[in-house]
């Protein structure tokens, strides 16, 4: 994966020089360990700043919404699925895009790594399979596969589903992954236990909306929590308002979420709100055999009526 950066720069340079695109969206090196910043290059001179490593977890499809330029965009498997969803939902046109596909082996979870280290991490170096975190008085090496973001460890679409360029040969997809163990565990709880679980899960929420804003699906001009005429949701820290936000947001993502993990990754207080979207993802798979964002040519199940749709819920 480390050789990708050079290939990304080569493709980006070519696309910009030929005028095939107006800008290339990728990542530049972050200012702190294990972070990179979404970045655009508009001229070949800006291309050298583009990087690639295991800290490119932000979903770049989020930066395409309603843009008018011709854009080259660096896309992992999940980004590509959200680009497809954006195309289906008319948030960008396919012909505006040159998708620079990145076969992905997963992004590392900086919190998991930080928790395993005895102090502040000041430097992180990676090889193809390992990652070494160094700080004052310690240096620890991890197998990347042991410290992946949770969603990445469960990913079965690592290769971009659409691409115009590919920075490397496709990687092997993970087989036999049990994607929904956490959802089943919550399903198995009693109603009281589950409510308690949700209460504990959401207790630290400060309603900064980083989860919503990092999500490529959340592009409503005005989110329901921000509507003021009428106002649907209270603005304080009342638990029912916090829950309303998270539950409703999850439902808005039903049949659209690709489990890219941007929401969980961006949360400043470490909430795994993916348990909500994953439940709905599982329902879509069970009921409609649907996985979001695999093809621009198929309408999502909540978008269309099919005579074969399950209707057992009608009593």
């Amino acid at each position, binding site marked *: 994966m480390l050789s990708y950066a050079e290939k990304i720069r080569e493709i980006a340079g070519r696309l910009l020089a030929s005028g095939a695109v107006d800008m290339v969206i990728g990542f530049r090196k*972050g*200012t*702190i360990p294990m*972070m*990179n*910043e*979404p*970045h*655009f290059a508009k001229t070949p001179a800006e291309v050298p700043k583009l990087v690639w490593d295991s800290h490119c977890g*932000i979903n770049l499809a*989020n*930066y395409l919404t309603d843009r008018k330029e011709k854009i080259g965009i660096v896309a992992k498997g999940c980004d590509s699925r959200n680009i497809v969803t954006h195309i289906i939902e008319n948030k960008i046109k396919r012909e505006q895009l040159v998708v620079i596909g990145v076969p992905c082996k997963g992004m590392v979870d900086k*919190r998991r790594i930080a*928790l395993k280290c005895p*102090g*502040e991490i*000041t430097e992180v170096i990676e090889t193809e399979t390992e990652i070494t975190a160094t700080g*004052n008085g310690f240096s620890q090496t991890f197998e990347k596969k042991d410290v992946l973001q949770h969603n990445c460890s469960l990913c079965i679409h690592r290769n971009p589903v659409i691409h115009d360029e590919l920075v490397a040969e496709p990687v092997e997809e993970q087989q036999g992954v049990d994607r929904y163990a956490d959802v089943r565990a919550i399903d198995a709880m009693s109603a009281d236990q589950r409510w308690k679980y949700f209460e504990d899960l959401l207790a*630290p929420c*400060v*309603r*900064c*909306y*980083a989860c*919503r*804003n*990092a999500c490529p699906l959340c592009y409503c001009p*005005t989110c329901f929590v*921000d509507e*003021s005429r009428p106002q649907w949701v*209270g*603005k*304080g*820290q*009342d638990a029912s308002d916090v829950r309303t936000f998270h539950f409703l947001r999850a439902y808005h993502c039903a049949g659209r979420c690709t489990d890219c993990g941007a929401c969980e*990754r*961006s*949360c*400043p*207080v*470490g909430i795994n709100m993916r348990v909500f979207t994953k439940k709905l993802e599982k329902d879509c798979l069970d009921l409609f055999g649907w996985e979001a964002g695999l093809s621009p040519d198929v309408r999502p199940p909540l978008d269309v009526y099919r005579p074969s749709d399950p209707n057992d819920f009608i009593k």
Partner: protein
Amino acid sequence: MKIIKIDKSQWASGLNQAATAYRLFGPVKEKEFHSFKPLTNGAQPDLSCLNTRLSPKAIVYPQSEVMFDYSLDEGRDDHHQMREAAKDYSPKAVIGIRPCDAKAFVLVRLNFDTPDYQDPYWLRAYESTTWVGLGCEAPCSSCFCTTAGCGPYHEEGLDVLLADAGDHYLAKVLTEKGARFLAAGGWKTAAAQDSDQTIASMRQTAESKIASFVPTDNLRSLPNNDLYNASFWEDVSFACINCGTCTYSCPTCWCFDIQDETRGTSGVRMKNWDSCMYPLFTMHGTGHNPRGTKLHRVRQRFMHKLKYFVDKYDRGIQCVGCGRCVRLCPVNIDIRRVALMMNGFAASGEACAIE
């Protein structure tokens, strides 16, 4: 300045004793990170904490605070009247606050305590608190307090400064309030004569560990409009997702919104943290939004902290260098980088090259 020696063996018992006169708050680890919580039933502050995930500003300025309550029940004599909500302003003490966070309250006070307006909620909560700070021995690599008008042993805003001297704390008494708190804890052993030098040298060591800096020397003299129209804002704001993480984790961000919430015949008027990152923050009743794009909003945040505040108060930037926004921003927008661009902005309209 008086310095008290507190043996660590007498720390917990002293805190328990002080707890009879003060409500104590301190850093407590819950799940994976620290936050300031009430220390009840003899709970001890975890002073090994580098710094809390969110700033302690909520102790004085809760994210959501009821100011008034009211009843719409016409059977009551006081229906349709705002009543001041019951509050507990009994003495409290915050243990183990870092000097950056304590200094932040001093900056926030500029907003909540002016000759024309005094925010009674903020002021009464602040005045009822004794601030027992802990010098930073091991600042984070993203801390830049020494160039943000602060420092790892900075005293402004503190009533007591603790320095961790191994088997004991040296407690520098900075105010009368601080002296009262130490007396309440039963700590009264005067420290050795040279303790002041000990703290000074600890301070020097800590300051030398700060490896991150922001340049601010040009900010005041730069023309507002030129900076506002600088070409780098598109680059700065591109990655921003306009969440409230930076403003909510910031100890110096003070903006709030006022909301009424009614349920049945009773209701409250509350103030809630707000964020200049949100479109609704500046939405006019007409539907027009003067900060309609994220570029507007990102620029506002940095211009406020690094330019408008500097111009208005002439006492440095509206930032204490705690580094939380740097560490928590989901897309790695770094105020240090932006300060460098702003401070290095040349009248020709070009920012200095930043790599």
